[in-house]
Structures are given as C-alpha cells and as structure tokens.
C-alpha cells in the first residue's frame, strides 16, 4: 500500500513541467491601450512637443516621436516614453535628451495601461492634459480621464486633487449574469431542496 502511494507520488513529481513564461498576452486577457490628449497644445505654436521612447531596462532612448493634440502611442510594452518640449528653432528629428533648451514636462507613460480579463469591457484609457506655465517652466496638468469600452461607449471622469477615478464598468453583462444570476438561481434551488428535505421527515 505505502509502496503504491510512493510510486504514484514519484511518477507525478517526474511529470512536473517547467512553465514557459512568454512575453505574450495570456488567453482570456486583452491589453488596455493608452492614449493622451493635450487640449491647448496649439496655443504654443513656438514650441515643439515630443517624447523619447526609452528602454526597456535602461534609459537609452531609440526613437523620438512628435506629440500632437491627440496621441495614441504605439511602442514595445516594456519601453517607457518621456515627454519634453523645446523651442521650434531648436528642434530637429535627431534631437537627443541633453539638447540645450529642452524642457522636461515630467510626464512618463507606456503604450499600454495594463492587461485585464476579457470580462472587463475597458479597451482604452485617455488622459486629458492642459499645458500650464509655471514661474520658470511648463508642466502638464491632468484635467480628466476618458475610459473607452468595447461596446463603443465612453465615460469621462474629472481629475480632482490629482486623483483619478476608476472606471465604473469592469464587467460585461454576460459575466454579470454568470457571476451573479447563476448562483442566485442555484441558491433559490438549494433553499427549496432544503425546505423539502426538512418536510420529508
């Protein structure tokens, strides 16, 4: 008896497979894309707004992209972008981070926000900013966030005190039915069975 159990356990341990952790989206999940908008960018025609795409893993940049009013960045998910601005006459397509006159907007972002389960209808998040002039520089002030869902609807949330509200929808209707309707029906059936069982005495 003990020998049988030992053999079973031993064979089972041999069956252990090492898991492959691939750099892919897992089945059952989808990426939530990131997008940002700068509403008053056209109010600064003397400046060029752009971002450097950095990494992954280090601060070496490999690409410069210009920023327009609405931006849907698309780059490797493990890279990060940092936004800057510079006077138009100082900008060129080969600009590097140490260029004189470059203004750091203190805004970093990724091309994807996160991965969520397929039961989550969220597909895109858009941060809306406004350029604000400080005493000696500029900064991007977050104004609102827009959440886009897979049924074509969207939801705007105003950012107050720097805090971003979460999207109010995170389950599709089908999953709401699965997660709640089926158990409710089962619970009613259970109550009925228990009452009937009690009356059978």
């Amino acid at each position, binding site marked *: 008896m003990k020998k*049988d159990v030992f053999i079973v356990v031993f064979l089972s341990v041999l069956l252990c*497979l090492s*898991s492959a952790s691939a750099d892919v989206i897992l089945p*059952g999940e989808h990426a939530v894309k990131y997008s940002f908008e700068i509403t008053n960018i056209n109010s600064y025609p003397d400046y060029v707004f752009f971002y450097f795409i950095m990494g992954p893993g280090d601060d070496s940049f490999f690409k410069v992209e210009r920023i327009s009013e609405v931006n849907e960045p698309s780059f490797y998910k493990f890279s990060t972008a940092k936004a800057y601005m510079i006077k138009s006459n100082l900008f060129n397509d080969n600009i590097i981070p140490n260029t004189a006159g470059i203004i750091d907007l203190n805004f970093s972002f990724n091309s994807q926000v996160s991965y969520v389960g397929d039961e989550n209808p969220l597909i895109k998040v858009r941060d809306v900013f406004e350029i604000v002039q400080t005493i000696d520089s500029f900064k991007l002030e977050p104004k609102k966030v827009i959440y886009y869902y897979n049924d074509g609807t969207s939801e705007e949330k105003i950012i107050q005190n720097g805090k971003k509200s979460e999207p109010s929808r995170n389950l599709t209707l089908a999953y709401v039915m699965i997660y709640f309707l089926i158990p409710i029906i089962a619970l009613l059936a259970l109550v009925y*069975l228990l009452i009937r069982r009690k009356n059978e005495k």
Partner: protein
Amino acid sequence: MKSRIIILFSLFLSLFLAGLVSANPVGVYPSWALSPIFAFFVALVLTIVFEFIVYIIGIRKYGVGKLLLYSLVINCLTMPLANFFAYLLKIGSSSYSLLYFIIIELVVVGIESVLLCLLTKRAYWKMLIISFIANLITATIGLFLIVLF
C-alpha cells in the same frame, strides 16, 4: 475499495501539486475553447460531472438522481462565485495567485461540505472529506487542461 480510493486520492494530490508548480495562471482559458464564456460552461459541466462521480463513490445508499441534482445545484452556486473572487483578486496576474487560489478552493470545500451535510443528512466530517476529494480532482483537471492545451 478503500485502498483504491486512497491511491486515487494520492494520485490526484500529486498531480495537483505538479499542476500547481507548472500551471499557467488559473483563470485563463485553454486554446481549444472558443471564448472565455464557453470555457466557463465547459468547466462547470466537467466540475458537476466529476464531483457527481465522487459523490456516488463516497455517499452510500443514496439516490443517483438526487446526487446529480445536488452536484448541479451546489456547483452552480460555488463555481461562479469562486470565479468572481478569482477575478477580483486578479488570480493569474497577482503575485499571490497561488495563495488566493488555495484559499478560494478551501472556502469552496467548506461551503460545499456544509451544503452536502444539510442535503444528505450524513456526518459532516464525511462530507468534508468527500468535498475535499471532489474539489481536489476538479481543480487538478482544470489546472492540467490549462497546462496541456
């Protein structure tokens, strides 16, 4: 008979442990499923069937039809809720996925054993063992379906 049950239990315990070591995160659906919802219903049916088989083996002198009904109702209650909590706890992408998975399974075992005890009017500790074995088997099968496919 008892030794066969013990061997079966040991096999599934070992496979379960192996599955935990090797499995992709729980909550994803295997590639053969057409969609997550399809996969959910396949998993629900398999859970009902396999737990029903364990009920038949473990609960003597009880109507087969009633045991099938109990398996159907109990798993329709616990499985969607377990999936919901797995979703809330982000099992699959959280660092504590394994811990959360085990906690959820233990809670499910507890709830199912209580319900079985109330429905069958058998001793609670026997229903606890049956529920534990039934959920061990279904969790193991689930993990391996994900790993193999």
